[in-house]
């Protein structure tokens, strides 16, 4: 059975999401901590969430306003979490 181009693309996104989850888990298992680790883990989480919203939810085909709202959500929530963690580290 031949996969359509959009199905193949969704499959690639799925594989990437699983790979990034494994990366997050491995960082946790390695006991890594600190400012840069926190920023990398947060960035991975926000990129993964954005990928689900953009490609799985098909927001990439909608008006730029909806994509902007979703992007701003991840930027603001991720940004404020980062600020809180930096305060904790200080």
């Amino acid at each position: 059975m031949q996969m359509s181009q959009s199905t193949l693309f969704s499959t690639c996104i799925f594989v990437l999401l699983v790979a990034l989850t494994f990366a997050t888990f491995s960082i946790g298992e390695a006991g890594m901590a600190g400012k840069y680790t926190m920023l990398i883990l947060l960035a991975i989480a926000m990129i993964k969430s954005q990928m689900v919203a953009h490609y799985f939810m098909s927001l990439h085909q909608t008006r730029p306003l909806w994509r902007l709202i979703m992007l701003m959500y991840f930027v603001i929530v991720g940004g404020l979490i980062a600020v809180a963690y930096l305060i904790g580290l200080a």
Partner: protein
Amino acid sequence: MQTTNMISVKESSLEKIEYQNLPGDFALWIFIFAEMLVFGVLFIAYAFSRAQNVALFNDSQLTLNRGFGAINTVILITSSYFVVRGVAAIKKDLTHQCAYWLSGALVLGSVFVGIKMVEFYEKFNAGISMSTNNFYMFYLSLTFFHLMHVLMGMVILATIIARTRRGAYSAKQHTGVETGASFWHMVDFLWIILFPLVYVIR
């Protein structure tokens, strides 16, 4: 020649990009944005509460089963992928395939619930409750609140599967499938943030 090129450039720039509406019912999108806002506030509250007592949060976090969290993340991502395949199938009028993909997502949803139950059982068995400390208050309330959304998503998926089997959706009319799919994807990406926040970042 140059004039012809200019005209074609002007024509192409006047071509309107056709955007699609938000997938599914717009009323559900209001609900999705509201839920995102609530979870967003809870995530930020967790992070600022942690900043007040980093040592307590780090020590308590070590008692969580990170493996369960990671497995549940992969389960939700896989179920989301199944839902994508289900939506793609109904758009091609493949109702049986759509029902199979969505059933797969539903099964994975129940595996997620099962793992979460084991996790909660372990914690309650160890005498941990919401009043133990601030970390557990956030951990239990965030994950339980999310679990409620998973259960709600499963009810929606089960309804859509039953309706799909009865032939209620087709390539022309599949708003219901897209509506349920959007909700399930929201449940997925909220967990994608919750997992590293509560289980990994320290």
